[in-house]
């Protein structure tokens, strides 16, 4: 079971597993005993079947378009966004869209090549849990989530860009 880091830096464990996209000809392999994140388009394709199941969430890959489930996001207990490589910054935009445009309220998790030095950016874009790449030192997560005590921009952690806060 992976260690999950919360936005406040504390660590917990949970049972959620990420189900990879099936190869051509294979079908989705959903575990029976654990809650699972499945590819978002497949969730949508099987919507009748999955809806209302609070042990099924979705994950997006970095090239996926979260728009496809825009009006349904809050039916999901958990959404994962995959960072296939830590330098692929598309997941940050996906997170902001989910939070700010589609109003997603539940847990948003960064998965994949998640490293320490990106955690604070992820937090500011709306992620509230993180599964660190296995070889990284989880004890440093809290520090890395808080390198900066504030930011210049409005983001999901603050509505007010610094120029508005300065205005008093």
């Amino acid at each position, binding site marked *: 079971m992976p260690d999950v880091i919360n936005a406040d830096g504390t660590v917990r464990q949970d049972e959620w597993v990420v189900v990879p996209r099936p190869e051509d000809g294979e079908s989705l392999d959903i575990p029976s005993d654990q809650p699972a994140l499945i590819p978002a388009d497949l969730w949508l394709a099987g919507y009748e079947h999955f809806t209302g199941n609070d042990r099924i969430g979705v994950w997006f890959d970095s090239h996926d378009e979260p728009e496809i489930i825009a009006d349904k996001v809050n039916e999901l207990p958990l959404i994962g966004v995959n960072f296939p490589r830590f330098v692929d*910054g598309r997941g*940050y*935009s996906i997170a902001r869209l989910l939070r700010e445009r589609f109003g997603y309220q539940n847990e948003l998790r960064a998965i994949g090549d998640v490293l320490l*030095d990106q955690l604070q950016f992820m937090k500011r*874009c709306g992620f509230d849990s993180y599964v660190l790449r296995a070889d990284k030192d989880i004890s440093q997560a809290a520090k890395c989530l808080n390198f900066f005590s504030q930011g210049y*921009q409005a*983001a999901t952690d603050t509505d007010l*860009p610094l*120029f508005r806060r300065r205005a008093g």
Partner: protein
Amino acid sequence: MYVYDEHDRQMAAERVAQFRDQTRRALAGELSEEEFLPLRLQNGLYVQRHAPMLRICVPYGMLRSDQLRRLARITRDYDKGYAHFTTRQNVQLNWPALEDVPDILADLAEVEMHANQTSGNCIRNTTTDQFSGVQADEITDPRPYCEIIRQWSTFHPEFAFLPRKFKVAVNASEKTDRAAIRIHDIGLQIVRNDAGELGFRVHVGGGLGRTPMVGPVIREFLPELDLLTYLEAVLRVYNRYGRRDNKFKARIKILVKALTPEGFAEKVEAEWAHIKDSPTRLTPGAIERMKGFFTEPPYEALDNATDLLARQRFENRGFDQWLSHNLDVHKKPGYAIVTLTLKKTGTPPGDVTDQQLEQIADLADEFSFGEVRVTHHQNVVLADVRQDRLLELWEAVTPMGFGTANLNTLTDIICCPGGDYCALANAKSIPVAEAIQRRFEDLDYLYDLGNIDLNISGCMNACGHHHVGNIGVLGVDKKGEEFYQVSLGGSSHHDADIGKILGPSFAREDMPEVIAKIIDVYVDQRTEEEEFLDTYRRIGIKPFKERVYA
């Protein structure tokens, strides 16, 4: 000039602490080289031919004298006693040790400087016209908008891992463009609409490098208050849809081309519609507040020193030449804009020693309210010099090596560090610049030739802007040997254009002669009022080809 408040100071200090921690983890092996790479680049640190190279940010080219003195001390304490002014209005150090960089950043932070986002695939230093605020024909001072963009882009959580580097430039003059906005990823031209409201004409998708392009207009008028939300929309579209599969196709220009400018503009408008009225929308108060940092220095009420200058020029030919070339008209009577050219033959363009940095600081204090500007031509500007003190200034700068009266002439060469410093180079570029400068040492001849932009890059990354030189020189590698390709007709101004390649490349020792032949064609063919570019545009490339390859 912008002055930090407690928020800026705190974030600068946190940034230094963060990089100190990252460097420690990198040295301890907790961060792989691959993982450390984007982190160090976002702190200005390249690994280069001889040592790390540190690119220090000079927001929109503005420097105070205390900052210059601090730079001088840093080059002395941590480097070999010189620095380099770049085409991005920044400063580079060529030899710092990796272990020292956190300390250098701490020293910089004390004088409100940093190296944030001077490299890497993020939003880089926003550049602008070095004459901002002092020229008569600008619509408004662009620097407050540059600082607004600087703050918005600094540590932007969504845009720190873009497909590729991203550069924004702003220009506010109606007649000239010294900021080369049309070869930037985003070029903002400040305009007024028919109703007299201030806004921006937005160019997106310009850039040099492997696939040079002039940025098309994607919005004719963007109201002032919408600046940041619109930039956010452009960046978000780019972040999501820019190519990441191929480093050479990852710049926004490739996306704009693939979608067509109209198609790209539509996507941006669709994105913008959602965030237009978000809290990121600027407020009149925020703009006013920022303008408060760029107010006029305490100018005295003066008259133009016309008679005095006429007399001094008559008595001193060197002074006369310098005034004719390195001086620009100031919006205030009795003042002048002076450009100190760092293009003395034998010194790499843009290079300054620690002593020279201190001399420039002294000159700034003595003659220009303690401030200077760095130009993308790798020169330095004293923007507010009293006309009745110009002679005194000229006498002071000449022995320092800044009196070369060649601004905008053929020997005011833009030149990248090339093979002498840069690990990516195909060829050296500094010795080529020097050889050309030597070939054209006769100042009278140089003046007769008028304005010519000669730009040299050591490889196709185009750090020396060769594509937009009226004459461009590009170092190429042929079976391990250095050759130089020449292009003609480029421009980075309002009439921006990418130069055309003349033909097969040349050996280094032939370069001065090749340039001389190109110049001969111009001299033979020009009409009285034509500049080099005008003649080229009229007669085309053929006559040049015929002469050079005859």
